[in-house]
């Protein structure tokens, strides 16, 4: 890629990210729907442990897992499914006409969403921590933060790969995405340590980066975390790095491939599916 191409793509990334960053700030109702309401199911699951007189760290596991659902929901509906909305509004056609890479559009969306989601997760977690009086025992703030960022990066890379399917498919894919809600909350151990699932199922669930990211963060943030560890933190971080690279490469390949199929079959501009 030439320097000109790089600058063009960087401008595109910033422009698409800008829409997301500005968008959330201009509609203050997101505060209610993306901060307050997500707290409700999180608190419900925390109350389940509370009603069983479980240790306070278990409540912390749930609060952290629940806060991380914001990332997953954002990846599903704000990233993967976004091309569905872009196509319906006619924007996808214009993206395809542009001389910049479609990857730049996706990276821009991911950065914009990742930025707002980053704060959302932290705020949700802090509120939950305050409500239930959770005490943290952080082994390393650096590694905790690094794992958090790495998890966001890996999950959004997966989201970019999933988004490419929306170049071809419409409402069918949008609906199929719903299958990645509760089943992923279950498999990735959002509300209980993934170790509880057993190693074969846990290994399968590790293909979703949030599984290992969450497990590593629990180990790094809570006293009882290491007791419920699925894999050692270092191994999980290495796998997260590998998954990020794999999904990014997958997204690049699939975008190119599916754009070609979309042009061949005339599906890039197909609307009202």
């Amino acid at each position, binding site marked *: 890629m030439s320097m000109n191409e790089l600058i063009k793509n960087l401008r595109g990334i910033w422009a698409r990210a800008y829409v997301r960053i500005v968008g959330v700030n201009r509609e203050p109702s997101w505060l209610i729907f993306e901060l307050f309401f997500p707290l409700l199911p999180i608190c419900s699951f925390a109350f*389940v442990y509370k009603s069983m007189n479980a240790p306070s760290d278990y409540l912390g596991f749930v609060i952290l897992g629940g806060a991380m659902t914001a990332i997953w929901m954002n990846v599903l509906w704000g990233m993967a499914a976004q091309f569905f909305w872009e196509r319906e509004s006619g924007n996808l056609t214009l993206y395809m006409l542009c001389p910049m890479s479609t990857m730049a559009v996706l990276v821009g969306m991911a950065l914009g969403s990742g930025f707002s989601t980053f704060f959302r997760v932290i705020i949700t977690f802090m509120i939950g921590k305050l409500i239930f009086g959770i005490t943290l025992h952080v082994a390393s703030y650096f590694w905790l933060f690094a794992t958090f960022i790495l998890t966001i990066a890996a999950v959004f890379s997966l989201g970019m790969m999933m988004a490419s399917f929306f170049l071809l498919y419409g409402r069918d894919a949008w609906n199929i995405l719903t299958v990645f809600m*509760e089943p992923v909350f279950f*498999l990735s151990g959002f*509300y209980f340590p993934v170790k509880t699932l057993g190693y074969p199922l846990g290994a399968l669930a590790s293909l979703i980066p949030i599984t290992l990211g969450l497990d590593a963060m629990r180990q790094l943030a809570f006293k009882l975390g290491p007791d419920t560890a699925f894999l050692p933190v270092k191994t999980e971080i290495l796998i997260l790095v590998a998954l990020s690279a794999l999904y990014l490469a997958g997204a690049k390949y699939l975008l190119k491939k599916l754009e070609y199929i979309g042009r061949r079959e005339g599906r890039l501009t197909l609307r009202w599916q």
Partner: protein
Amino acid sequence: MAVKDIYRRFAAIVKSAAWLGWQLKSNWADPWIFAVITIIRPLASLFIIIFMFRFALGPSASADFFNFFFIGNVIYLYVYNVLFGISQVIFEDREHYEVIKYIYISPVNWYLYFIGRGFARFIVASVSCAVTIAAGALFLPLKFGMSAASVPTFALSFAVGLVSIFFMGIIMCALTLVMARHGNMMSESVSGIFFISCGVIFPISALPEWLQKISAVIPVSYWLEISRRLILGTDKTIDGVWHGISTGALMARLGISTVVLFIFSILFFNYMSMLARSKGIIDRTTSY
């Protein structure tokens, strides 16, 4: 206009809206994919709770706990699905299909239209409910004891409970008339209010007192407790807030809170509708 004509007109609205709702919900995929998705989500929800119990209590968890959360979870499927279905109507018609202005100016009765659109979700919820019951019978130590005499009371409480959900859906629609589209987040999140405050998967007595007061005004709390008592065939409950309150008294509270909700939903919807009109945002799109 004769009563018969009014009935026919109303039935036509509900029927066409139900048909539309079903088409929007189901016509995008092969029936088997649709069936898999309908089945897999409630099962996953059930397994989340089962594994939480397994993690916290180990294999020695009490059957009372399982009975409690299982019935709550099954009834909640209706709350979630019907509420979700109705609360998405405004977003779908406004931002996706861009038909809201045409429906808004038509003489259609909004409430009947919402009932119709929510009906498809009711069907889906019923399928999910059947699947969850089958899975529960397989994987959980459940003990049900519903008597034949309880069936009419159960049916009545079920019908009133559904009606109350419908009115809550109207309130959600009223809110969405003046709000931006935040993907599916809103509908997912609002059902969380009922998840936390109505004793779906944990006893209301575990909540702080101020939250218990909120649960006392939501019909779903009564609906869940009545269903638990009638299905399990016992007035004994692990939830302390209901101790000493008869099933009849709970039925009365369910009825009264539903009537209050009915009045509030109509007033609120009309107010929000006027507000949206005065702001000129009935048919705006808010993508970002």
